[in-house]
């Protein structure tokens, strides 16, 4: 059965959330989730970069790597494309919104090594998506990542002045929350299967 891009889009957000079911892109997820505002900014940046790079990588893969029979170079090529795109995004954000630029700070270059973004490009190849499916999957994954980090930022904001045992403060409690969130999201996973 060929899945519609729209189904893939929603599945990537809810049932197969890249962060909560594949556990990709954890680094910036854990470190930037203290405030809803900056989480939102980073989420937007990740979504934008994911869509852009996945589309570019689709084109590179199908029109350069496959015809030349060098698909084994996909890891290197995908990373280069992502790195260049992030640089470009950085320039555009600096020009358009200095406030967002400084809020994201070092996390903007960190998107380069956000494995969720490389993961989306690689899943697109493994699952042999068509172009439209790829667009749906990339947009869904980006928004899914944003949903997860926003949810976590919301929970952390609520926990800010609550009592947490010393040993669990910071990363400890965050990972436990993430685990519980993952359980909740995996609960949806029977609805649609996209992998």
């Amino acid at each position, binding site marked *: 059965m060929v899945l519609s891009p729209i189904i893939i889009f929603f599945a990537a957000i809810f049932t197969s959330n890249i962060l909560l079911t594949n556990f990709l892109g954890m680094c910036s997820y854990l470190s930037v989730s203290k405030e809803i505002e900056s989480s939102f900014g980073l989420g937007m940046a990740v979504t934008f970069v994911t869509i852009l790079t996945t589309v570019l990588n689709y084109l590179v893969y199908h029109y350069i790597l496959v015809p*030349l029979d060098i698909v084994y170079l996909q890891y290197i090529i995908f990373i280069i494309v992502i790195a260049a795109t992030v640089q470009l995004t950085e320039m555009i954000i600096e020009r358009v919104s200095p406030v967002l630029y400084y809020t994201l700070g070092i996390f903007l270059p960190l998107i380069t090594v956000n494995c969720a973004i490389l993961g989306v490009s690689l899943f697109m190849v493994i699952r042999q998506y068509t172009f439209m499916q790829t667009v749906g999957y990339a947009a869904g994954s980006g928004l899914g990542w944003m949903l997860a980090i926003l949810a976590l930022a919301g929970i952390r904001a609520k926990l800010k002045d609550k009592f947490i045992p010393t040993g669990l403060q910071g990363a400890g409690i965050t990972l436990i929350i993430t685990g519980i969130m993952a359980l909740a999201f995996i609960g949806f996973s029977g609805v649609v299967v996209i992998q």
Partner: protein
Amino acid sequence: MTFILWNILIVSGISGGLALLLVLADMFIANYGECTIDINNGKKQIKVEGGSSLLTLLGDNNLFIPSACGGRGSCGFCKVKVLEGGGPLLPTEKPYLNAQELKDNIRLSCQIKVKEDIKIWIPPELFSIKRFRAKVAKIEDYTYDIKGLTFKLIEPTRIEFKAGQYVQLETKPYAKNKSTVSRAYSISSNPDHEDILQLIIRRVPEGICTTWVHDHLNEGDEISFTGPFGDFVIQDTEADMFFIAGGSGKAPIKSMVEYLHNHGSKRRMVYFFGARTKKDLYLTEHFREYEKKLPDFTYVPVLSQPEEGSDWDGRTGYVLPYFQEFMRDPAKTEAYLCGSPGMISAVTKELKKLGVPEDRIFYDSFA
């Protein structure tokens, strides 16, 4: 073989294409064209290539805004009033600005990037700050980690400053540090000696400027600095003076004590110098001499951890408990502090407890 070459060619081709794209983007997106900086309502107007920070651009045009951290946004000294342009307030500036400054649109010049015409206002005395070239005349080892530097001015040949002010020393590129950085150091020489300048610099592990000074700077080298900056200066009163400064914080105090002596001050002065062990003491003889030269000056070194079995017969522990002993009239006492933010706040608290009015406590905090 062709197979390997082919792969290299493709990867290079794709990388090259993307690099070209980035270069083009840099030319078109990051190009802000020529901008005009208007200072103090037309007193000075400079045309600059947009895209860099306001602090850098002003520095390039010989206008030196005080900055202890060299533009990293960690000292909050480089404040200017922005009248027009400059973009929205950034989260990196907020922590350094109080409510009144926010209302007046005071900004950190190191954080603002000039991307359009901008109008600013700066205190007129900043126009007199100069960049000096000087030769390293002498490097002395004061302790295992503190050096005293004497510079002979080359151009301009004289410097006018007040005791307690500081200059920004510029490093030269060395080892892995390819760019110039500048760091603030208090002047330790007597302001009456206008043709030389002395600094006291303590080695900071991994510090870019202090490593340069300690490991790469030699007598005879040429250096540059800008200044003088700062309002940590002697108040013109007759009140008792308490100096509290450890380590390289001794620099401005040395300058002040020498200046006061030169100008025949009769004020009562006490200098508390806190150190860890005997090998952290320096210039002790120098200050002992001033005890004799000045009518009422006491030098009080205090060791927190004198070595077992050492012949130290002076005071031990921290400096705070000894203030009481030398305090006569707290309401008529001025305190001059130089040290880390932690030390400043602890000493200020103690002095206030003893009854020294807050507006008589002056300090120079290491940023």
